């Protein structure tokens, strides 16, 4: 049976080969596949140009596999399962734990040591069991986007800075316009609304979800207030209709088309929003804080992280490529193009050509500190999903109190930390 199966396999492979369908590998020179979602969000051809710089320098070719974020995630996950991951992969902070645990991505600490790379210049390294598996190449802040026309139509004079002011603004928008005030995408398929549009409020008022690297949701005073704040928005109809089925793209679409007053979104979308809706009159603002909170604000950051596949056959070259992307000049260029902040501390991007709105966001960012507690967390997306579900249950009145909602989420999260 086994012999037969083997023969059959060989046979099928041969058929496929003769059909000319199998890809053949060129042996002579090294080509690294680089799978990421960055190329889609950067200006056309920009990433290719940067990679060509590396080819000119080292002779190693870079083949870009650029697809949107969600698709890249499916691809990387499938690649992790099958050992077919592209040599160099763009990673989100929330994926690192799982792929490192599966031994699908390579230990960068070893590679950096072998290369004698100076890690002091890196703004951050994402680790698993004490070793680095991902390096953030550039970082994005998630400020508040404000549609000024809607505020004017509603008669809101100043951009709110506290929760009370924010709720007042929402009430006026509800009263005087047919637009929605705020939006949190809660689709089960892509639950990162919990990270970017929910937890942002908590972090901005100095709160946290974790304590000593473990979930600390129960008896979490600020978190309780944030949940209630959202419940108030939901009950008063300030949120876009049907948020439970929305994804981040739906939200951006609502904002682009002038049907949403406030949203929290990455500044990576600045350029695309400007191109899609040139007439939209919007600005950035710091997240409103809980009324009694006086301290500094944490600002949600996401990053374009990078890692190397365990199945990569040219790890040394791949590491060189990462070092190239992290080198001060290249890193500065990439940051400038992406409306992002550099992952290399010594990089000094020249933002003078960027949109002036970007400079506003930069200023907001500098007044606070960067935070994202989902980066490096185990099955991070699933953590978001369980909180997402509990939040909807609380919205719908199926859960009696915030305390019950947080206890239920805590139980789900603890399972992932066992």
């Amino acid at each position: 049976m086994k012999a037969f199966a083997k023969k059959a396999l060989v046979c099928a492979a041969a058929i496929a080969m003769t059909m000319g369908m199998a890809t053949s590998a060129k042996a002579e020179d090294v080509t690294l596949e680089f799978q990421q979602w960055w190329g889609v969000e950067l200006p056309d051809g920009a990433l290719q140009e940067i990679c060509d710089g590396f080819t000119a320098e080292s002779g190693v070719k870079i083949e870009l596999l650029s697809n949107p974020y969600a698709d890249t995630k499916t691809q990387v996950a499938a690649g992790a399962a099958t050992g077919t991951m592209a040599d160099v992969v763009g990673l989100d902070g929330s994926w690192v734990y799982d792929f490192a645990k599966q031994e699908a991505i390579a230990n960068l600490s070893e590679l950096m040591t072998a290369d004698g790379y100076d890690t002091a210049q890196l703004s951050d390294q994402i680790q698993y069991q004490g070793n680095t598996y991902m390096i953030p190449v550039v970082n994005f802040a998630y400020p508040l986007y404000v549609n000024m026309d809607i505020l004017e139509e509603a008669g809101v004079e100043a951009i709110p800075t506290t929760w009370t002011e924010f709720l007042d603004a929402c009430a006026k928008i509800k009263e005087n316009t047919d637009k929605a005030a705020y939006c949190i995408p809660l689709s089960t398929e892509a639950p990162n609304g919990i990270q970017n549009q929910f937890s942002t409020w908590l972090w901005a008022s100095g709160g946290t979800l974790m304590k000593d690297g473990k979930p600390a949701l129960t008896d979490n005073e600020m978190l309780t207030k944030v949940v209630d704040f959202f419940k108030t928005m939901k009950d008063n109809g300030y949120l876009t209709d049907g948020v439970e089925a929305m994804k981040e793209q739906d939200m951006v679409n609502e904002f682009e088309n002038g049907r949403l007053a406030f949203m929290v979104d990455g500044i990576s979308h600045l350029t695309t929003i400007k191109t899609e809706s040139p007439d939209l009159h919007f600005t950035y603002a710091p997240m409103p804080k809980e009324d009694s909170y006086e301290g500094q604000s944490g600002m949600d950051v996401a990053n374009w992280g990078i890692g190397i596949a365990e199945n990569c056959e040219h790890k040394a070259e791949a590491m060189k490529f990462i070092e190239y992307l992290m080198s001060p000049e290249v890193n500065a260029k990439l940051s400038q193009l992406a409306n992002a902040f550099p992952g290399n501390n010594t990089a000094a991007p020249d933002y003078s050509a960027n949109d002036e709105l970007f400079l506003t966001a930069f200023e907001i960012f500098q007044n606070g500190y960067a935070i994202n507690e989902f980066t490096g967390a185990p099955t991070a997306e699933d953590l978001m999903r369980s909180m997402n579900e509990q939040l909807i249950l609380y919205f719908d009145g199926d859960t009696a109190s915030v305390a019950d909602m947080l206890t239920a989420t805590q139980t789900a999260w603890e399972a992932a930390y066992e």
Partner: protein
Amino acid sequence: MIGQKKLWVKILIVVILILGAIWAGFPVVWMISNSFKTNAEIFELPPRLITENFSFTAYAKIFQNPEQVRFFINSYIISGIVVILTLFIGIMAAYAFSRFEFKGKSVINTVIVAVQAVPPITLLIPYLSLIVSLKLFNTFGALVLTYLVFTLPYCILMVTGYLNTMPKDLDEAVMIDGGSRWTALWKILIPSAIPGLISVGMYTFMQAWNEYLFALTLTKTNDMRTVPVGINLLMGQHAYEWNQMMAMSVLGSLPILVLFLFFQKYFIAGMTAGAVK
């Protein structure tokens, strides 16, 4: 009295006809209409079928993007190969079932019929590693071979049905004239089964053209991907470009629509033959 009853029946039929047409056609009309709008107009109130910004911009964007054109080319190539291979392999198998008695016939036949019940998602995880070890990951071969598993059973069953309706004398006549079974099958039997084969071929084409799960997970680079994945990639952009997604949907559905309109007679005839067998 009878005339009045007939009138009522006629009115009832017309009412159902129209309601049915709205139910079946409205989403399609809306899809087409939105492919000509600007993004902001798609959710405007009150909704309009045709707006002053009516344009082919969304279509132009797709045709100007070589990556998206490539999705169409890939879909045509893959579906085309799947149809040819399915018919070729399926006809051979059907001939065996129709003309021979052999050991294991009933078991093999049972398995083939039952395969129609196997959900593709249950095989997804093993396929991931199997396709990799066959060195077929990210090739057309991966898609063609996995699609064949799900297209062959229907083809074999239908073609066996057609062949069973043809007298065995036909093949024997050819063989008496010195021809082989092979010639009998391809020169005599198959030409007279053309309407049925068109029906089977069309159904196979639809299955291959529409497949999403394997196309998504068994390929990696965009030059290997198909239309359903391409449509979904558009959904993954930073914000929905509804008009482009609609345009891509219209273009992606066109081949099937054209096939159906051209061959609907054969198609229904083919199904009748299969149903009556």
